[in-house]
């Protein structure tokens, strides 16, 4: 069980902003290539693996996205400071005072902010605006900055994982390296059904990789392994907390991208109950996952999302509880073990009830 946690630590130390997932993909490949029957990379950069099942069963796609939110250099000012655009959803004030790595070589930089002493009253009381912010690499002018940085370079947060508190891990990119770690571990097992393990790209800019991956796999059932929103901080209404850290993996009923397949969802929660694995339902409908894309592939796919609650998601300091990760792996394993029988049963019932 320690393995999956170590994988998360290793994976979150790697940079892979949407569109630049190569280093993450290389690491994942090194971990799984001995455990799968086939693998290939598609034009978009997805890593698609295949593991032949030992018996009958539906074609199952397991999905975890490799990319993380970050920034992209969009302009170099004459004073050598770098303007940027955000890649994926990042709140402006999260960017202030952060350390970053730029481009393939990881040129260090920081995101500065006008000192409070020099702000006028509107600035003091107002919110941070993304447009005001620039990255400082210490360059004296544009010419010097251009020696080190190109427009279009992606920018990652330079934060190393830290274990702290009671079973907690702080790291950048927990969304969705937790899913990648769980998927790596799942591929080490053996199953009755055929498994397509898909490590996808560009989820954060609109579920791009999941579209081409599911087109190639043509799954009947898909499980999306994710990190999800969690804000169980005091003075927050319980329904606004989304999920609770340390209370088990979260199942999505509905979000902005998908309504989970009811049968599959019931089967997953029944499995959790039967195996005494803690779980919870996500209480908000915000955000979206690859499930939204996979569901509408081909003639339609039964999808569900299992996720580790991540406090402060989409910041360089997101936080998870180790037990949630371990329980997510346990639950996914149990689900895959009994899935063929269960899903055929549901199929038959569905036919009787709904057609």
């Amino acid at each position, binding site marked *: 069980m320690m393995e999956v946690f170590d994988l998360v630590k290793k994976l979150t130390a790697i940079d892979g902003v949407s569109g630049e997932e190569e280093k993450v993909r290389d690491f994942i490949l090194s971990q799984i290539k001995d455990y799968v029957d086939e693998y290939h990379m598609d034009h978009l950069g997805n890593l698609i693996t295949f593991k032949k099942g030992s018996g009958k069963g539906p074609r199952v796609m397991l999905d975890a996205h490799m990319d993380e939110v970050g920034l992209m250099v969009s302009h170099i000012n004459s004073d050598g400071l770098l303007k940027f655009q955000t890649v994926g959803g990042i709140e402006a004030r999260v960017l202030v005072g952060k*350390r970053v790595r730029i481009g393939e070589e990881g040129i260090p930089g920081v995101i500065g902010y*006008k000192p409070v002493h020099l702000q006028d009253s509107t600035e003091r009381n107002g919110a941070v605006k993304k447009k005001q912010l620039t990255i400082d690499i210490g360059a004296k002018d544009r010419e010097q900055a251009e020696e080190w940085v190109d427009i279009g370079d992606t920018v990652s947060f330079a934060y190393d994982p*830290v274990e*702290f508190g009671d079973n907690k891990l702080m790291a950048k990119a927990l969304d969705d390296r937790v899913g990648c770690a769980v998927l790596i571990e799942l591929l080490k097992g053996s199953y009755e059904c055929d498994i397509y393990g898909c490590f996808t790209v560009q989820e954060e800019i609109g579920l791009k990789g999941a579209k081409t991956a599911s087109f190639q796999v043509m799954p009947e059932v898909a499980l999306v392994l994710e990190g999800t929103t969690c804000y169980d901080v005091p003075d927050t209404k319980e329904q606004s907390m*989304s999920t609770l850290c340390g209370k088990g993996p979260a199942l999505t009923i509905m979000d902005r991208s998908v309504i989970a397949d009811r049968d599959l969802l019931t089967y997953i929660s029944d499995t959790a109950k039967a195996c005494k694995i803690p779980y919870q339902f996500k209480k908000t409908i915000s955000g979206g996952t690859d499930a939204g894309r996979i569901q509408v592939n081909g003639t339609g796919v039964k999808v569900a999302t299992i996720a580790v609650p991540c406090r402060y998601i989409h910041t360089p300091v997101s936080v998870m509880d180790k037990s949630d990760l371990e329980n997510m792996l346990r639950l996914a394993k149990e689900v895959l073990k009994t899935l063929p029988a269960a899903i055929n049963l549901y199929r038959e019932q569905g036919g009787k009830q709904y057609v």
Partner: protein
Amino acid sequence: MMECGELLKELSEISAVTGRENMAAEKIAGLFREYCDEVRIDAFYNVIGLKKGQSENPGTVLVTAHYDEIGLIVTGIEDSGFLRFAAAGGIDAKTIGAMEVTVHGSKDLFGVIGTKPPHLIPPEDADKTVKMEDMRIDIGFDGPKARELVRVGDMVSFRFPVQELLNKRLAGKSMDNRSGVAALVEILKELRKVRHEDNVYVVATVQEELGLIGAFCTTYNIRADLGIVIDVCHGDMPDCPSDEVFPLDKGVAVAVGPILNRKHTRACIRLAEDERIPYQVDPEASDTGTEAAVHAVAREGIPVILLSIPSKYMHTPVELVAIDDIVSTGRLAARYIAGRGKE
């Protein structure tokens, strides 16, 4: 003997939240010991180093640079284990979201200042700033365990590994005013190379961020003939008044203004010209808000010079300074001290 950049990196990563400098006093004293004849730590944790002069009847020069840093103080512990906090020193709440911290409880604890993810922020709150009283520190423990480890009143410092940037520039927390402390060490290094008549006290002072507190006792304790204050000034940044910000790598900023001793300041500028030490002039029409304001009115009044190191993004965790500016600050101060008595 440590190179200036290396030393500053180490100094920046030390915690010494204003009012709790005892956390770092010994460390600073250790630095001074390498160069000074006497080093002591006073009741306030000001760290005082004395480098004796060669004169039979030496005058006294007092050089101060504060070593405290802005931070946070724990004001409450929630049943869920999250910590409430307030600012210790001038902190802009807009700059501390999603920040790593060290909570100095019964032991040092890692924590983060949480922020709500964009997915959960209602559109009507999107352009609102979050107040400090609505933020919490997450130390990853439940209520009972958190209360065992942390007490109300415990201090919190920012945790920020120094980033080495281009042009020997460093970014990190507490460059205000560990850059000044690094300059004190530069002065001591320089003074070792030359003969100086006066006794030189270098003092790393406390509680500047709370209102120049350490400088009050220091300027009373040490009867000085000349005071030199070393602090940071605003580095050149976009969208800031051009007479209040100073470019990096253009040398030490020598302050001119009513509270600063005119004779010494002019002589200091002349020296910089003669010795080709890079410098710039920092106009300060008010009392400067630095320890120079304390020196100037201490006892019978100490003639005071203010030397500043330009730092971008002051009072954020990415204060950014150029090592060459610290070196030029140390050199100018040391040459000025060594030149006294030969006038």
